[in-house]
């Protein structure tokens, strides 16, 4: 009976000590460098993928008409405002003509003056003609001297020359008047085509330099998207491919379109390819020019090939490859990758075949000697 309390104590000590040491061993093995790395694996499947190109661009109008004065001056009137629709030939406004009216009147007076001169020249010529004719007859009848007759002939020649000079003067005055009238017409802003006023840069009374655009008219039917694709992921970009367009202001709404043309010049500084994408049908509500748009372009489906998620692609020892599980150990297999789609699936050209097991997610960077544990999800992730 004397040993009883001792045994109970021993038992109690063991009850405390053994779980403590068991916990210690568990802690030592499940954390720190001795712990296995949780990994998830996936079986490589032969699948056909639809590569998709992704680019961003801004809405631009294919035709933009910038209307402004060709001489420096002051704006007298502007009849249209931003948002107004205009038709071809519509007068949109006018520059201040300043002295144009007076100049036209002056030219008209000059014209009338030239007409009067012409009339005078005609009268002189008619008289000279008659005189010349009469003296010819008198000379033939020997009633006048040769000298007087030749003087009359010379007077007729002078009158003829004066007449043609007066005629040319009249033409010049007419042309001057026409030119001034045309210049006066040119002070008007006329819409060259049907469109929408997008910019009104100055108001009546403003003095503008020659060549500065006062109004900008765009053709809303010609909206397209100037799209930029990173050169590294733009293989297969050609005209005619179908595109999905997501406008920044209409998230969740996808419009359809297609590639109108791929620009022959790429952007050398930003390393991007440029393309124009047009809408298949005009959106009911026109997007504003300059709005940001995301463009995804569907490429034709590729033939069947082994496909892996891009999270499985690792860089190890200077090579691109995947971690495979072979006979319970990790092995790094270099691969050559092909096309990829936007959902993260990549074709493997060389290095894997369908049915291989590859590591997709891992808790830490892997090494050939890493201990690992297969799991469904990496622990610690909020689901």
């Amino acid at each position, binding site marked *: 009976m004397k040993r009883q309390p001792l045994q109970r104590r021993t038992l109690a000590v063991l009850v405390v000590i053994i779980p403590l040491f068991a916990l210690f061993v568990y*802690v030592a093995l499940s954390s*720190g460098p001795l712990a296995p790395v949780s990994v998830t694996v996936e079986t490589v499947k032969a699948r056909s993928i639809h590569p998709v190109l992704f*680019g961003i661009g801004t809405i631009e109008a294919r035709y933009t008409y910038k209307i402004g004065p060709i001489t420096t001056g002051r704006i007298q009137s502007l009849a249209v405002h931003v948002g107004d629709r205009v038709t071809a030939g519509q007068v949109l406004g006018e520059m201040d003509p300043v002295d144009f009216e007076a100049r036209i009147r002056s030219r008209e007076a000059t014209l009338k003056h030239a007409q009067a001169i012409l009339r005078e020249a005609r009268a002189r010529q008619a008289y000279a003609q008659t005189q010349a004719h009469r003296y010819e007859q008198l000379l033939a009848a020997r009633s006048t001297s040769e000298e007087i007759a030749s003087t009359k002939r010379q007077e007729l020649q002078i009158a003829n020359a004066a007449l043609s000079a007066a005629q040319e003067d009249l033409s010049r005055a007419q042309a001057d008047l026409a030119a001034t009238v045309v210049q006066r017409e040119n002070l008007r802003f006329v819409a060259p085509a049907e469109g929408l006023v997008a910019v009104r840069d100055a108001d009546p009374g403003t003095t503008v330099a020659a060549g500065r655009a006062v109004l900008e008219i765009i053709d809303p039917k010609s909206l397209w998207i100037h799209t930029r694709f990173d050169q590294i992921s733009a293989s297969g970009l050609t005209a005619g491919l179908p595109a999905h367009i997501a406008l920044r202001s209409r998230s969740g709404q996808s419009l359809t379109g297609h590639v109108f043309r791929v620009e022959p010049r790429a952007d050398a500084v930003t390393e991007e390819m440029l393309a124009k994408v047009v809408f298949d049908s005009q959106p009911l509500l026109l997007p504003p020019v300059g709005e940001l748009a995301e463009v995804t372009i569907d490429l034709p489906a590729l033939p069947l090939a082994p496909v892996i998620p891009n*999270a499985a692609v690792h860089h190890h020892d*200077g090579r691109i490859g995947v971690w495979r599980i072979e006979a319970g150990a990790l092995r790094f297999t270099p691969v050559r990758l092909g096309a990829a*789609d936007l959902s*993260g699936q990549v074709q493997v050209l060389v290095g894997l075949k369908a049915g291989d097991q590859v590591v997709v997610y*891992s808790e830490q960077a892997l090494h050939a000697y890493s201990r690992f544990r297969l799991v469904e999800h990496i622990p610690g992730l909020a689901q």
Partner: protein
Amino acid sequence: MISLAGRDILHAWGKFIFTGIGLGLLIGVTLTMAGVYRGMVDDGKVLLDNSGADLWVVQKNTLGPYAESSSLYDDSYRGILALPGVAQAANVTYLTMQIRQGENDVRAMVVGIAPGGAGIPGWPPYLVAGRQITRSHYEAVADMATGFKLDDRIQIRRNDYTVVGLTRRMVSSSGDPMVFIPLKDAQEAQFLKDNDAILQNRRRIAENPAFNRPAIPDLLDTVITSQSSNPYVNAVLVRLKPGYAADEVVEVIQRWKRLTAYTRSQMEDILIGKLIATSAQQIGMFLVILAVVSAAIIAFIIYTLTLGKIREIAVLKLIGTKNRTIAGMIMQEALGLGVIGFVVGKISATFWALIFPKYVLLELRDAFSGFIVLMIICVLASIIAIHAALKVDPAEAIGG
């Protein structure tokens, strides 16, 4: 032969175990402090590991990109690629900022990664969920520590990004989780801060008569366009071809490209020796004091435990127990206390390390050396106690 120490421990096992647990918690704190220090150093090292680079090319005469700001033209990488020994070169940007998600914001380091797919330097080397970035804009891969989930929409400066993948242990040297976004977006995020700033900048330029000239109507637009683009990156990450020495390539880059380049070991020196030096020293100092205090407390505990048994020891001496046996008992008890303390300490440190906001790295090496030091302290402390015990007069046993 019966174990005197075992019998003594069993005699007062509750007291012994509780003392051990108390001691263990103290040791746990010391181990955690060591773990905090190692975690800081490890944050720096994983930053370098995760970038996947052999060399870092930065602005001339700077310690960039982590310890100092550095900016170089984003086309510098083309020239670097052409140098002998360079296998891959990729632009990268780093920007520590607040990322908004709904109502909350998270402090994170935004990394702009060059396009090209997994395996390019700078890309996250492994994921725990989701996928790598496939679109050239507005996608992000975030670290688990940010608390973001897959398909979350997060806001970085002016744009919304979709979280498509999650990583683990991708942190900056100060422990901020990383968020990876495409390089072009990151360049824009570094420069185009917010709409207000852009508008104000435009207004400022427009008010400058040198740029807003009526005779040259397009000048203002040209100036604004040229001022609102950002052709800079923070560093170029370089991977070497096999067989080339990093130092030689560094020399070539510094000489011919007139940029500064660092090898992995130099970068480690910069991060650990300069960037986190003072905070690491602070923690290190605290660790030293904590270790000294712990040692003193362990010594006191063992000493007082022994003094508490001084009467029993006197009895033992009285009945003719050898000094060696008594010394052995005290030392065994001290070591036993140390072992229990270590076990409790290690367990508690492992569990509470998980709830620390920053990474706590409990290294096996630290635990091992901690154990050795603890045993030495226990032995030293027991020697003082043994000295006291052996000096005791057997007459005390009979009430003297």
